[in-house]
């Protein structure tokens, strides 16, 4: 998928992806010549269709989590999965919500792993099962991570 600024006859640059949490999704593009910015707004059906494919508009910056689709979309039994990745003491590893994964994807790749680990440790210590943007905000404030 490419976006073309017709006025400038120039390919627009992908800026960012947003998921407002209402089942829709948006992607912003900008023209580097004239500065015009546009947003592509997808309805819930279109959003779901893309997510069902397991692909990311704008490109994938994070490696997929194991069974990302099944764990994210299936109405599963309580405790169907036990996430032990990286935790040797038996504590459950928290899951990053779709919105928090979007935010994490915007972190520069060379520090993304460290940032993810910090958020994970913050959530594990507080028994938080799912890392949402709200949890990330609290973590940044409490841990002094502003800017991450």
């Amino acid at each position, binding site marked *: 998928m490419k976006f073309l600024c017709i006025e400038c006859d120039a390919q627009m640059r992908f800026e960012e992806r947003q998921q407002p949490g209402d089942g829709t999704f948006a992607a912003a593009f900008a023209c580097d010549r004239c500065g015009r910015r546009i947003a592509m707004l997808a309805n*819930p059906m279109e959003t779901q269709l893309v997510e069902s494919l397991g692909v990311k508009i704008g490109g994938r910056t994070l490696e997929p989590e*194991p069974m990302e689709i099944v764990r994210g979309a299936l109405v599963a*039994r309580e405790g169907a999965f*036990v996430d032990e990745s990286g935790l040797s003491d038996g504590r459950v590893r928290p899951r990053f919500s779709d919105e928090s994964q979007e935010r994490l994807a915007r972190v520069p790749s060379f520090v993304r792993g460290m940032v993810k680990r910090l958020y994970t440790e913050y959530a594990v210590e507080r028994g938080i099962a799912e890392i949402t943007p709200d949890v990330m905000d609290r973590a940044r404030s409490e841990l002094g991570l502003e800017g991450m």
Partner: protein
Amino acid sequence: MGPVSFRTYREVTGDDRSQLGEQVAAQRERVHDRLRDVTRVVAIMSGKGGVGKSFVTAAIARGLARRMPRGVGVLDADLSSPTTGRLLDARGPLRIDEHGVHPARGSGGVVVCSMDLLLEDGAPLAWREPASERFVWRGTLEAGALREFLADVVWGELDVLLIDLPPGTDRLDDLTELVPTLAGVIAVTIPSEESRRSVERAMRRAAQAGVRLIGVVENMSGYACARCGAIAPLHEGSAGSMLAETFGVPLLYRLPFLPGDSADRPAVLDALTASCLAALP
């Protein structure tokens, strides 16, 4: 105002940042990498429901596990009506670590991944996404779930991974795209003419897709008396032999309906396994 003139996708030569094609290719690569240590992937299929396909899959898996040193796995691709997990006494939860999702271990040491392990008892397959226009994305989502069962489960080293397909042929199409190296399919039928017609369609679809037809198992091929072992008719017809002849493949076994307390049960299931093992590529 006249028509707007602008360049097409191919004429705009800059990078496609989304690279959806590459993302899909990467998904296929993950499936390939995950199955690298699996000697052969074999699908068990039937165009018709209710022929005992999952029972046959579980029986073959248990039998092969006794004869194959590297191990046997079963992937239950019947997402809506999963039963193989229960038939193999496999229980969740599924453990996740940095290597992926670890399959459950069922009877005979068979490793299993099935929706049966993930859904509440008696609950239908349901997705959290909006119900509106579900028909548009549901098939894609289920194909994605099958891909994750293949790519994200730590199957490890196996002599054979059996894929228990649901009735119909849609999932076979998904599977052949995801696993181009599929070693073949075993078709399961019951003796009836209705089953023959349905399974013939499924076998023809497999043949059209270039999938090797390993053979046919005729299930419920008579009723085995629990006391004397004599086989009495159960269904009219001879679908197994007719399908085998039509497609030029072996009729691997005629499996009678066996009461749970039948003394012949272990020997019969062993013979089924031996026949399938001999036919495996």
